[in-house]
């Protein structure tokens, strides 16, 4: 356990930024936190969490996959992959840190997605334990401890300063870059902070949410439930929930004709979109009820089926505050789950 006095936070960032691109939450013009590259003078946001999730670092909204040159009948494939620069994300919360595991379980299983893998290898995640969770937080429901987040390095804001613990080799290496600024820290300060956080978490309105009746193996029970219709009735079919979600990982591959060649890029897609499963001769999910059901079944049943029970939601609460019509996974769980009424 290392300790950094808050007074030296800026030096700490500068030391990291000297050899890595350092990203941390910064308030934007609307007062919302978003990850920005640190430079001298950048002030870290005091918000609980960023508006968009940290998945953007590993799975950006759009990325070029390759290019094609076409000439007459010939086609040439150009691999545009470049070696990524090393980067550090500071201030990731427990929920987003947990989401990386979920993304890994999709992108790093065979066949491995090399675009994702490269960025994952080059990124160091410094998490920050929550001190003041919000009413929309429910990570506890999925066994995530906001007071003890995962990541290469975990940090706590305590009365004695910023406490840092390296969890991985990458984390160790990062801390060693800043060794000059760090002192040995006292575990007890961390424990005190954690206790405070956990106390608040107990009081959160959604902490008592139950996953009973949901999870692996529940397809047959849940798929044809009549409640899906009423739940999805107001859904606009927009992609807000998917795009702010740290675990949504669906994408589309599209070609863009620049006039001088074809750029093939990948971009986020949403299972809420009507054209998501559209093909030349039909659509397997024709109505918004089916698309809505797919999203929540995926998070609450299909993903757990494939991951040994882990849910595909980390309880970050972004969809709760961003959905234009305030329909969200909590309402779905309460309606369909066993013990939430």
């Amino acid at each position, binding site marked *: 356990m290392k300790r950094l006095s808050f007074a030296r936070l800026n030096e700490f960032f500068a030391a990291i930024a000297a050899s890595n691109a350092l990203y941390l939450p910064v308030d934007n013009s609307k007062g919302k936190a978003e990850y920005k590259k640190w430079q001298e003078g950048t002030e870290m946001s005091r918000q609980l969490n960023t508006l968009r999730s940290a998945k953007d670092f590993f799975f950006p909204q759009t990325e070029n*996959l*390759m290019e*094609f040159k*076409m000439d007459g*009948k*010939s*086609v*040439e*494939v150009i*691999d545009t*992959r470049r070696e990524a620069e090393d980067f550090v994300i500071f201030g990731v919360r427990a929920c987003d840190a947990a989401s990386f595991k979920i993304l890994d379980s*999709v*992108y790093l299983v065979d*066949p491995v*997605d*090399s*675009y994702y893998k490269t960025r994952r290898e080059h990124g160091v995640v410094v998490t920050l334990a929550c001190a003041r969770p919000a009413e929309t937080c429910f990570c506890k429901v999925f066994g995530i401890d906001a007071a003890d987040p995962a990541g290469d390095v975990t940090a706590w804001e305590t009365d004695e300063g910023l406490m840092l613990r390296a969890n991985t080799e990458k984390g160790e290496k990062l801390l060693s870059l800043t060794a000059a600024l760090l002192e040995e820290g006292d575990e007890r300060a961390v424990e005190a902070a954690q206790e405070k956080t956990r106390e608040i978490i107990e009081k959160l309105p959604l902490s008592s949410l139950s996953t009973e009746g949901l999870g692996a193996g529940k*397809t*047959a029970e849940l*798929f*044809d439930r009549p409640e899906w219709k009423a739940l999805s009735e107001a859904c606009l079919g927009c992609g807000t929930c998917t795009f702010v979600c740290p675990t949504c*990982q*669906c*994408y*589309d*591959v599209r*070609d863009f*004709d620049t006039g001088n060649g*074809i750029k*093939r890029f*990948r971009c986020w*897609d949403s*299972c809420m979109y009507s054209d*998501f*499963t*559209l*093909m*030349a*001769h039909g*659509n*397997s*999910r024709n109505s918004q009820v*089916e698309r809505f059901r*797919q999203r929540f*079944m*995926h998070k609450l*049943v*299909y*993903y757990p*089926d*494939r991951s040994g029970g882990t849910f595909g939601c980390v309880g970050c609460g972004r969809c709760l505050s961003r959905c234009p019509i305030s329909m969200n996974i909590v309402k779905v769980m309460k309606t369909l789950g066993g013990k939430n009424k």
Partner: protein
Amino acid sequence: MNNETLIPYVGIVTEITQQTPDVKTFRVEAPGGGKLFEHKPGQCAMLSVPGISEAMISITSSPTNTEYMEFSVKKCGCLTEWLHAMEVGQMITVRGPYGRNFPVYDELLGKDLLFVAGGIGLAPLRSVINYVRDNRDKFGTVDIVYGSRSKDDLVYYKEIVEEWCTTEGFNVHLTIDNPQEGWDGHVGFVPNFVKELNPDLKKTVLMCGPPIMIKFTLAGLMDLGFQKEQVYTTMELRMKCGIGKCGRCNIGNKYVCKDGPVFRFDELDELPNEY
């Protein structure tokens, strides 16, 4: 060339055969000759014309063919129209192979096989059929029931007549939907034809065709006393990445591109009815 499954190979179309008015078969080879990659019967590949789109197409040639791969494509959308318009020598991109194959290396060994196909549905089965022809000693008898709207809509007709019909242990049963001049074979729909043929219950069934045909043939087979565990089919759904990541081709917890496209009917029973 690459270690990224999303980056395709470039292949040259070396031969184009018009199978039916709306189906063409494309022979694809690597620019330097030979196959782009090895595959197993029932697997698919992503064909693409950059700038147009990508589509998952089953590999209709047998893995035993060492010179080239073949794809049969029905004209039904933007990409397929483009493919139909192209000429020999055109390069296209191919990536794969993707998905689960028919279990020719294990479960099907030594079995009597009944292939049931309708229309373009024969394309994925052709890979298996020719694999079985080339490994005649490893499998039992082969019955092929194949039907289409008319005689002109039967794909691989020449191959069926000249090669499959003449293979020992092969019984080919063709049918068309309506009577037609110059056709003295069976007339009627595939599901009824299968029932009429009353196949031996020991056979393992491999089936592919339009959904309506599959539905009624399966019902017919059940009536005859077949078990769902004996029947395989191959599915087609909206597929984009081909590797179980982009998230659109799932039926319940299974991704068709990765966990399929070949499924046994008892497996499909466990999945929600969303295909």
